[in-house]
């Protein structure tokens, strides 16, 4: 794929073939984009919004006590120390030694209090921001953002999910929004099937056949419902963008220094790929890491897992800052719940939604703050607890989602984007 990059800087052959394009007629020119799904004024406003999101999902539940909210030398504190960070007065667990140096970019909410303590309920509820039950399946955050903000001006698919195991196109995150808002999943960071232009088709021919298809579609849509044709155009546009950016998946193009800083382990590689994915203009990137459910041997597990997170996460925050991307990219680190302060007989920590922490940084978020606190034992929130619905409001606000978009239209049924009884946490907002 190395040659793609150099080719892209040249004129495309078809740019010199105006006569053929003329034949295709005026209908082929405009193209239907996501724009046509929205009212014009909102679309114009969104065109200016270049906010992006990176969600790091630590599946199974990260221990807050071994990360963002250490309680050393207390009954449930465990063996690790707390260390100072780049922000005087804020300490984190020593397992976050690299992240501690980036604390001045981060905001940590230590007063998260949610409800579900099973994985099956918790994963869905946290990812959906726990909207009120209205008999529909709400989208996960990535699909919601794909719907609300659409692709960035890059035209890249709005929702890319970097994950271990299988890839493909995962519709299940989209809920009632429909498969179109699902995630393009890069299984183990690998590109999707059929990404490379078939060798029997030249770039020029590819352009031509797509223009012809588009023309047939536009003709078909006359007098008919438009939504399916728009959806068809949209997926072909995304496919084209992906094919054009095949270099995204070329791991060999990362520098040795990058690899060393992020680490060559799975989460390290995936966060490095996430950086590049954000650089290509994908609106929402989700990175999943699994096996955080440390019911047994929690401290050895954390010693390994949290360090696997710490190194690439700190490198990523540093890089986003260096590239002036942190003003535009909202970074979120969360799980379905935290872990029990009480240490069980397997030296493990179990599921604990009552008092845990979520970290964030970047677009619209205050820098270098801790908001909320737990009691001295770390067992419960001390003061105002915050549910996931509050965080969704906070993040939508940080992303600059306009007020008129804070409601979905589900075939005539108005549905609030986030829980009606929750509201943004102003202490977290810049």
């Amino acid at each position, binding site marked *: 794929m190395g040659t793609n990059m150099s080719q892209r800087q040249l004129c495309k052959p078809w740019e010199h073939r105006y006569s053929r394009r003329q034949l295709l007629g005026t209908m082929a020119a405009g193209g239907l984009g996501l724009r046509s799904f929205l009212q014009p004024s909102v679309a114009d406003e969104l065109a200016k919004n270049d906010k992006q999101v990176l969600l790091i999902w630590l599946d199974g539940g990260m221990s807050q006590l071994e990360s963002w909210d250490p309680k050393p030398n207390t009954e449930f504190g465990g063996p690790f120390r707390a260390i100072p960070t780049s922000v005087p007065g804020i300490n984190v667990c020593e397992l976050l030694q690299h992240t501690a140096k980036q604390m001045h970019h981060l905001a940590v909410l230590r007063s998260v209090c949610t409800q579900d303590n099973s994985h099956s309920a918790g994963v869905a509820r946290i990812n959906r921001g726990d909207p009120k039950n209205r008999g529909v399946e709400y989208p996960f955050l990535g699909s919601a953002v794909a719907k609300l903000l659409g692709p960035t001006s890059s035209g890249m698919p709005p929702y890319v999910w970097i994950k271990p195991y299988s890839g493909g196109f995962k*519709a299940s995150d989209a809920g009632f929004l429909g498969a179109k808002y699902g995630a393009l999943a890069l299984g183990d960071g690998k590109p999707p099937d059929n*990404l490379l232009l078939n060798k029997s088709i030249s770039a020029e021919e590819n352009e031509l056949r797509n223009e012809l298809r588009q023309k047939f579609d536009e*003709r078909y849509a006359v007098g008919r419902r*438009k939504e399916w044709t728009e959806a068809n155009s949209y997926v072909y546009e995304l496919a084209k963008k992906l094919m054009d950016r095949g270099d995204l998946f070329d791991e060999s193009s990362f520098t040795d220094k990058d690899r060393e800083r992020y680490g060559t382990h799975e989460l390290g590689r995936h966060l490095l790929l996430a950086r590049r994915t954000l650089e290509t203009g994908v609106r929402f990137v989700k990175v999943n890491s699994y096996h955080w459910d440390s019911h047994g041997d929690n401290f050895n597990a954390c010693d390994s897992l949290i360090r696997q997170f710490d190194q690439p996460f700190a490198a990523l925050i540093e890089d986003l800052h260096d590239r002036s991307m942190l003003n535009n990219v909202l970074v979120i680190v969360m799980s379905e719940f935290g872990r029990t302060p009480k240490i069980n007989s397997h030296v493990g920590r179990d599921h604990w939604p009552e008092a845990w922490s979520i970290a964030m940084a970047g677009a619209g978020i205050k820098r270098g703050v801790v908001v909320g606190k737990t009691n001295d034992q770390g067992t419960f929130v001390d003061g105002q607890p915050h549910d996931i619905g509050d965080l969704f409001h906070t993040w939508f606000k940080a992303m600059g989602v306009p007020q008129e978009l804070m409601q979905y239209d589900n075939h005539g049924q108005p549905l609030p984007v986030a829980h009606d009884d929750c509201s943004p946490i102003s202490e977290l907002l810049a």
Partner: protein
Amino acid sequence: MIRFGLCRIIIHSLILMIIGMPALWADDHPLALQIDELIAAKSDGQQPAPCSDDAEFLRRICLDLSGRIPTTDETRRFLDNPALDKRAEMIDQLLAAPTYAQRMQELFHVVLMERRGDNEKWSNYLRTAFEQNKHWDQIVRELLFPDAEDESRRGAGFFYSKRLEAYGQNPTDYPGLTRDVGRLFLGADLQCAQCHNHLFIDDYKQHDFQGLYSVYLNLSINSGLEFPAVTEKPMQKKLEFVSVFDATQRETGPRIPFASEFAIPEQSKEGPAVSVLARLADEFPTQGNSIFAKNIANRLWFVMMGRGLVHPLDLHHSGNPPSHPELLDLLASEFAAHQYDIKWMLRELALTQTYQCSSRFPVTLADTADAATEVSTTQISPESYVLFNEKRMLAEQLLHSTLQATGNLDRLQQPAADGKPNPELVDLTAKYVAAFANEAREPEDQINPTVKGALFTLNDETLLQLLSRQPGNLIDRLMTMTDEQLLAEELYLSIFTRKPTDVERTELFAWLAQNGDGREKAIRLLAWSMLTSMEFVVNH
């Protein structure tokens, strides 16, 4: 609207001719006519789209009843046939053709298994069932009680056995099986009623779920046979359950959801075990079970009309009423009265003007770019049925139609030397399912273009090979034609099942003229564009 009126008269007079009815009077209305009246009564003054033209109708009915688009010969014959009753004749012909059973096998496989996987015995079972026109109640009885002793039921066990397999980290998903039986045969998704009475669907009670669940907890896979089968342990006692809302201990015996509980059968020491499953299968799909009748009537309506009268299809309850309650009642009771004869039902639906109406409002063809001449479709709801609802094609329909259009179907349907299906067809089928089907356990109930599908059509080698010139295939036929008028007709009839308009002919001639030196390539690019366009990939 003259066309529309005329068409309506023709269709309805045909129905009368066919049924041999001398005149109209209320009690002896043919069902098709009653359906159209009930639809018209709720159209809120919205002028319906005109009747489909013959080509539009033919493509639609072939896709629905034979699972593929017609050949150019079939289309030409149909378009040239002057007979007034040719539509009804075509419907009967398609219902009688061997392709009907294949289409129904593919359709019901997807409906019943939701892409969990396939099995040869299972496909044979479904194929045979539709070849014999087994009625729906009989099929469901066999699915619910796949008696291994009864040879004609072998293969039906796949419905249970596949669902009892562990997948991923999940142990045997008994709640999932219970849920699916409710969803697929009663149109009721009882999942939330597993742990408590449903919060906002008053009709769904926890005992409805638990009663059915109690039966399935005794089921396990019988892997010792060469066909998919299950083993049933005798039920010993009632199932105890607790609502998560109040700690009250409750219990239930076996129960068909929304019906009363029945007693656990006494097991005698001698003789075979008495099967609860057998009793369930006997009492579930009855003529008197109106919930059972409404579910299947609604599902067949959806297959033909592209939108359930109750939608989503598995949420029948009083808070989600049908768009046309009288119509659903009528369909359900008529269907039950005809002993759940699927072929009869599909025929009745196909004869309606509702089915035969166009998916498109007419426009001034001379100036298609001028939006002012278009009727706005944005306010037309899918449940009004005044504009035919475009339908998703199953991966199988899309594959067979693509093979038909590109002139490769006959070749690929030839079995291999060992009698097994052509390996190229097997390979293509797997690829089409991977590219166009939903993920397992997700119903395929709406048009769903995906980037995955787009990348497949853009770049997959086997698909693009269908457009390489091989003796007798579409590209070959077109390349041998010197008369460009004939070429244009052949291309459009092959792919779009219609003749090209004047504008399209002119464009095609210009396209060919511009690419004089690369004619084959130009034709291939054009054919690819047509095959990937909406006009081809949806059933409209």
